[in-house]
């Protein structure tokens, strides 16, 4: 039985909480002292350098959000009406919205029930003559079956794209996620491992797309070449927008990157503590990490046998001051999804994940007490419901 929750329980463990420290403050102050806060400055270049180095991407462009980076992909590929892009149905709005904005049709395909990543066979089945690209989402920072998708795209002459919003610092067979496709996108939103509140990055891996991507970020102009002294005046070259991040935010991001190692270590410690307690419980499904995947401890999720249990658990946790959260509403069931997208076949695994998945609080600054509270509360719920046997 579930205790009835008190009217307004105190939140003792939030779902996520950014960890900003001295490095961020120092970089922030330095940016202000530098006096130039428009995008593309020293702080931005510093972040891009670090990411180019760690991912091996040809060029990294910092953007105001992952959403913006995804929109830049659609612009760079000049997608439009009549084009289709295959996306998993279990993903964030932006993954599909970016293409719908250009008039292209996002095609929703089902996910792999173990990883919640796009299922290779489902993707294969969704391919039509109109298909231009496959957009992968590395859910929870766990890589998709990259070899299979690279092969699939090569066979059908499709562009491979990666929504690596959750996958900063994660790898597949030693290669950084986001660096496999023609382009990849990272997110530095409030909820992510590395964050500056709002922020993102476009990883350009195809050298032919570097210039177009630079143009698109700077209002469709070649202003970046102009600033580098390569041309004497700049002009409108392609369709673009203003996809530059303020130097203030970039400064905070740089501070976060400087602490990336310790931030990730702290997250991994918590992820592993959860996995030790819940990973072997028969009645629960917990993250499946394929052998080739080196994940980044972005999310620890637990899947119950049905939606009621999941919702009860979330309510129980909340009543004890712990914030645990379900995830996406399947895109093919949303009003805009139905209007702008197309659904490929039945999507049972997407529906199931949406109904049964619960994410536990996870952030680098989580204290031992907070961690213990989450685990104890969860265990209490499992005991009450007779689920605690492994």
């Amino acid at each position, binding site marked *: 039985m579930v205790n009835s929750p008190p009217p307004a329980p105190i939140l003792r463990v939030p779902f996520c909480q950014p960890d900003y420290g*001295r*490095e961020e403050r*120092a*970089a922030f102050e*330095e940016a202000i002292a530098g006096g130039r806060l428009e995008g593309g400055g*020293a702080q931005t*270049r*510093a972040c*891009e*350098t*670090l990411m180019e*180095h760690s991912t091996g991407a040809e060029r990294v462009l910092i953007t105001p959000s992952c959403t913006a980076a995804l929109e830049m992909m659609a612009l760079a590929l000049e997608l439009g009406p009549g084009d289709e892009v295959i996306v998993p149905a279990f993903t964030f709005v932006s993954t599909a919205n970016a293409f719908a904005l250009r008039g292209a049709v996002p095609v929703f395909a089902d996910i792999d029930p173990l990883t919640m990543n796009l299922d290779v066979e489902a993707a294969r089945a969704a391919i039509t003559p109109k298909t231009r690209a496959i957009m992968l989402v590395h859910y929870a920072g766990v890589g998709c079956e990259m070899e299979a998708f690279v092969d699939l795209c090569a066979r059908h002459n499709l562009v491979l794209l990666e929504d690596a919003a959750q996958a900063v610092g994660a790898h597949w067979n030693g290669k950084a996620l986001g660096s496999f496709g023609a382009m990849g996108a990272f997110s530095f939103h409030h909820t992510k491992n590395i964050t500056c509140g709002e922020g993102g990055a476009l990883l350009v891996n195809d050298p032919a797309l570097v210039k177009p991507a630079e143009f698109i970020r700077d209002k469709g102009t070649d202003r970046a070449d102009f*600033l*580098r*002294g390569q041309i004497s005046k700049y002009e409108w070259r392609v369709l673009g927008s203003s996809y530059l991040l303020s130097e203030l935010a970039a400064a905070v991001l*740089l501070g976060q*990157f*400087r*602490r*990336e*190692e*310790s931030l990730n270590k702290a997250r991994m410690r918590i992820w592993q503590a959860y996995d030790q307690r819940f990973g072997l419980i028969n009645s629960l499904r917990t993250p499946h990490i394929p052998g080739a995947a080196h994940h980044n401890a972005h999310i620890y999720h637990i899947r119950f046998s049905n939606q009621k249990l999941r919702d009860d658990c979330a309510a129980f946790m909340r009543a004890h001051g712990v914030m645990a959260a379900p995830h996406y509403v399947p895109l093919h069931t949303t009003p805009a999804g139905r209007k702008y997208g197309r659904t490929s076949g039945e999507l049972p695994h997407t529906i199931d994940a949406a109904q049964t998945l619960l994410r536990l609080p996870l952030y680098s600054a989580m204290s031992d007490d907070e961690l213990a509270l989450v685990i104890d509360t969860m265990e209490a719920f499992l005991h009450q419901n007779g689920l605690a046997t492994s």
Partner: protein
Amino acid sequence: MDLDRRTLALMLLSGLLGLAFLWLPLSVLYYLNRGLDVSDTGHYYASLYHFADIRMMSTQFPLVWKLIPHPDNILVNRLLVFVLLMGSSAALFILAAKAVLPAKMLSKVKVWLLACAGAGAGALFYYYWLPDPSYNSIGVILMALVLVATFALTGIEDQHSWSFRSAALLAGFTGLGLAATRPITALIMALIGAVLFFMLARLSWQRLAQLILFVVLGAVVFFVLVQIFIEPLPVTLERIHGGLQKREILGTNQLVAKGLSLLGKEATTVLHTAPWALLLASLGGAFAAPGVADRFAKAQWLRLGGVGLGAIGLIWMQIIFWQQSQSLVQVPLEKLTYYLVNLGLIAVFCSAIAGMLTANKDTRILYWRLAGVSTLLLLATLSLTIFGTGYWIRKAGIASVFVVLASVLMALQMARGTGYIWSLAMMSALILPLWATRTTMVNHPYRLETSLSAQTQKTSIRGGRSTLRLDPLTKVFFDRLSAAADEMGPVDQRPILIDLSGRLPMAQYHMQARPAFTPWILSAYKGSNAFLAHVIAQMSDEQLARAWILDAPAYKYHMDPAPIAERGHQLDRDYRTVTTAFAPYIKTDIVLLAPKSKGAE
């Protein structure tokens, strides 16, 4: 021995205080492998380890440093600097006290405190320059040793003894070393040394003759060693000549005048920081000083009043200081400097006033000696900083060492008759600014963007000669240059690297490329482009054709490659991009260019 409880407690306290001072050096050791500045420090290491290729240099410090056998390794260098800094300043503290104070005033405990405070002060200097004090420390070490020799000389009665002679030898040896490192400072130090000697020593013609003889001999020893182990005089002279030309062309000679006016401005600011507190502390201290109040009726009350006033002055100063910096531990450096200099000034004023007030002739002489010595030490430190280096931060680093010394001497003097209480109080007051400096510098190391604790990534420097921990962005910079350096070919055949950013001399040291006859073509000076032309003009066609170029096209001070183009090498036509990297310190992308091979053209 009958130790009463009070003595025991005091000994315990001073032992602990000494350990607290020693904690400063220990934490330098902790940070020894963290951080690397790519500008100044690059100049230092390039000068040391590409010395033979260099023909234009305005200070000849490698002559001194290369006499000490050591490997080309940054960590070893830092350790060596650190040990010598601590050793020389600890020796200076002890010998200065011995020269000024009567022997009976220097108990074992006090000598221990002095040695610890001295080592702490040496470490403090290191802190001002964390992560790497580079050549500034060589000047300081030499200066401290000159003073050590001077103080030792004043205390040795028998001029025929070998201790007198070796002290004189040391003065000559280190004096000439200092002249090679910082010539004008060396001149001033010679003057100050002479005044100290005349002020403190028993004088006779024989003593003076012995002194001069062995000082000269010491200098000769230095000269001969340099000739044998390093290089013949004509080469040195050529380099000095080239260095003078360099200053001339760059227009850095005016910096002396600029430095002097800056110094004047800062001296005024120092005095204005807390003038009344300073006066109060000095006056109070003088009345509290032993042997001063005795001649007045109600001496006991006067002395107590002095203690009270002095304490109010000191506390007032601390309050002003902390109010201005708005933090107890994160203190702006210049505020810290002013504070330390103020402490030193109190030492001077206090002893001078005490000297004026006292009736006893011996005591008066003692106080005036103290005042004289403290003043000279302050002057000595300033002389090291005006010429060659002109910023307050450098002054702070050096001044603090001796200001602290002066204050400690004062504290010791005050201890006379009143036990350890006063010395302990003074020493405790000294610990505070030392701590503040430590914290400030660890968080804001010289020319680094991030604190030392954020320097976490193991990075191999100069083909593996050193391994340091750097911040991630700096590591990327060094790693990219390492990879590029491998393309340069075998180390002994590497070409010259011309740095058009004019701010990254560490690149040539790291890549083991040859310097362009000077360790650093400085940008951002009036004559920078002219100096670049001067350097290019000295290269043979073959050297220029093989040279690699480090360009920073978007950097605001980047230098015009025209002199290279005039010799027929166009950057955009005749070179290929080996790598690009985001450079720390100048915070912009650099491009590393190598000449296209002939076949490819």
